[in-house]
């Protein structure tokens, strides 16, 4: 019998009742992150069935999706139509009520750790190797960067976890993605994951949990690993994982919710076992050599419609392909390089961390954002915001003419007032270029923080290698 994969080990450690032909496994969840958008109906289900939250201590609650990215010092600010529409304001208030009623600690306005769900989990040390982590948000795969099993769930399942701390699950298949080679200057983790999705397609990982492996991954810092795991869902994968190592432990040590003292040493010994055995096998394997990888930009309406920045968009005669190209108002056989830009958005659970902010600052330093461009920089959490300000990054951003805003999901999904107008083109460090994702009729080009910064200066889609 072969050895176990990292996924097998985390899976086995959480099976309360094994699956059989008739029923899925009862599967235990160690950390449940809750936010205002995908939970109200689940809390209502608890009220209807008169159920408590089983483990409020294993919940991590914040507000990020529909919150404004201007300061909210007082909840009454939400009544100002210039700050928030009435519906999101109602949802935010409901979240506060729900957390109070069910005894869940909420990282709300004014809290140092309010921020994007997938940013604050790692930031406070709640995200740990070997944990199972879910959230009513598909980018829960982000937490896999720590060797956790993180995946997105719907609101019914949010209710299941609130009530029982468990889900009914069938075990997914496993997929190895082996990444080798050294990144060239100006090329970053975002380019790796975009290239991978371009290679395997938006359904290349469907039914599978990916494990990212290889020398390139070992060389990445935690922010970069999170960028990669974050977009696993854009390849359709259930989750994406990376085995923990010294880089992981160094990032975690001393964080609020990380084990302390002797518990830390015990935990690290346990975490070191969380790797795929040499004799384990995967259901599927893919390899990617990134030695010659160029900056990647999307040209269509899903993340697999991606090309190297200087290369022409392919020509494919297909209904769905042509619909996407027409929506984006781009032409096959021409590169995206040089396309006029209206908005540049730096932020989201994919690219709003210190590594990203520093990469952007390095390119923007002493430069000006082009006059035709509005550039918004939205940090992933309030803690990141103050860290960036301590490092002096905010001054670089504002001197360049960029907007430096409060933490939240912001223009990644246009649930608050940060939206694209019809026809506007946005170079975005987020994760989805779906039609209208950033606002009805808006056009999204996904790119790295480096490409976003270079494009902001140039006013057109630009190659970051010309700006470093």
């Amino acid at each position: 019998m072969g050895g176990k994969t990292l996924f097998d080990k985390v899976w086995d450690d959480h099976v309360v009742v094994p699956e059989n032909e008739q029923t899925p496994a009862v599967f235990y969840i160690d950390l449940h992150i809750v936010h205002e958008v995908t939970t109200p109906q689940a809390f209502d289900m608890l009220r209807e069935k008169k159920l408590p939250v089983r483990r409020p201590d294993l919940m991590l609650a914040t507000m990020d999706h529909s919150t404004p990215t201007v300061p909210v010092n007082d909840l009454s600010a939400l009544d100002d139509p210039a700050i928030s529409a009435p519906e999101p304001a109602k949802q935010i208030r409901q979240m506060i009520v729900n957390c109070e009623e069910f005894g869940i600690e909420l990282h709300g306005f004014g809290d140092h750790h309010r921020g994007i769900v997938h940013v604050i989990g790692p930031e406070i040390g709640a995200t740990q190797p070997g944990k199972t982590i879910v959230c009513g948000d598909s980018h829960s795969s982000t937490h896999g960067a720590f060797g956790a099993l993180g995946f997105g769930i719907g609101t019914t399942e949010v209710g299941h976890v609130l009530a029982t701390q468990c889900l009914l699950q069938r075990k997914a298949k496993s997929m190895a993605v082996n990444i080798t080679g050294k990144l060239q200057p100006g090329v970053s983790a975002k380019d790796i994951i975009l290239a991978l999705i371009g290679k395997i397609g938006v359904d290349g990982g469907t039914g599978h949990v990916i494990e990212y492996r290889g020398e390139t991954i070992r060389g990445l810092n935690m922010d970069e690993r999170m960028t990669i795991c974050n977009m696993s869902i854009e390849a359709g994968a259930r989750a994406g994982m990376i085995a923990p190592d010294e880089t992981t432990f160094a990032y975690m040590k001393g964080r609020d919710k990380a084990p302390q003292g002797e518990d830390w040493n015990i935990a690290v010994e346990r975490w070191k076992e969380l790797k795929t055995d040499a004799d384990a096998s995967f259901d599927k394997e893919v390899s990617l050599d990134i030695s010659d990888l160029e900056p990647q930009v999307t040209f269509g309406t899903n993340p697999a419609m991606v090309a190297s920045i200087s290369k022409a968009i392919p020509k494919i005669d297909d209904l769905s392909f042509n619909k996407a190209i027409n929506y984006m108002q781009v032409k096959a056989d021409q590169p995206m390089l040089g396309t006029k830009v209206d908005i540049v958005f730096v932020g989201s659970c994919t690219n709003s961390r210190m590594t990203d902010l520093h990469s952007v600052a390095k390119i923007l330093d002493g430069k000006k954002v082009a006059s035709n461009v509005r550039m918004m920089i939205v940090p992933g959490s309030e803690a990141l915001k103050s860290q960036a300000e301590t490092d002096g990054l905010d001054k670089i951003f504002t001197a360049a003419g960029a907007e430096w805003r409060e933490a939240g999901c912001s223009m990644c999904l246009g649930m608050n007032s940060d939206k694209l107008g019809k026809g506007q083109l946005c170079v975005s460090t987020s994760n989805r270029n779906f039609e209208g994702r950033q606002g009805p009729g808006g056009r999204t080009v996904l790119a790295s923080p480096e490409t976003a910064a270079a494009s902001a200066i140039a006013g057109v889609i630009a190659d970051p290698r010309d700006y470093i």
Partner: protein
Amino acid sequence: MEKLTKLTSKTTVLPIDDVDTDQIIPARFLTTTTREGIGKALFADWRFDAQGNTIKDFPLNAPGIAECKFLVAGRNFGCGSSREHAPWSLVDFGIRAVISSEIADIFRNNSLKNGLVPVIVDNDTHQWLLANPGAEVTVDVEARELRLPTGKTVTFPIDNFARHCILEGIDQTGFLMQNVDNIGRFENNRSWQP
């Protein structure tokens, strides 16, 4: 959820691949705290223009759409966001099954919890359905079969437990609640605590 054992209905066809849940229901409609009337937001930006006018040639705006309980979609339907509002809006609109050659994982999982049957078929059957909008087909959950008007019958995969819940119209929370003792034992016997 409403039970479903067997249903015969016409299909409506959306022949686009990789339809994501942002199209099924755009994010700006997720600010609701209930599920009431969510079908109005279904495919909002494909059904209506910026002024709110109906886009006539969109399949879900066709006359007689109320008789179509099945949506035949291109490959990889429901990819992207985990929003359960997507199946909620389809069900509220009147759709009871989504038929495709491939359906994204989270959407499929969410659908099964709301009595929306994800029917995955082989490429030939899929192509036939895409080419024959309005065909009257039968989705038989009991038999795990899709029957075409040509007389062809294909089986589709559906998890035993999810099938049981759809046939009986029961939600899964009750089953999980029956396991509280097992869950308590698991929590007490772990070698480490989260």
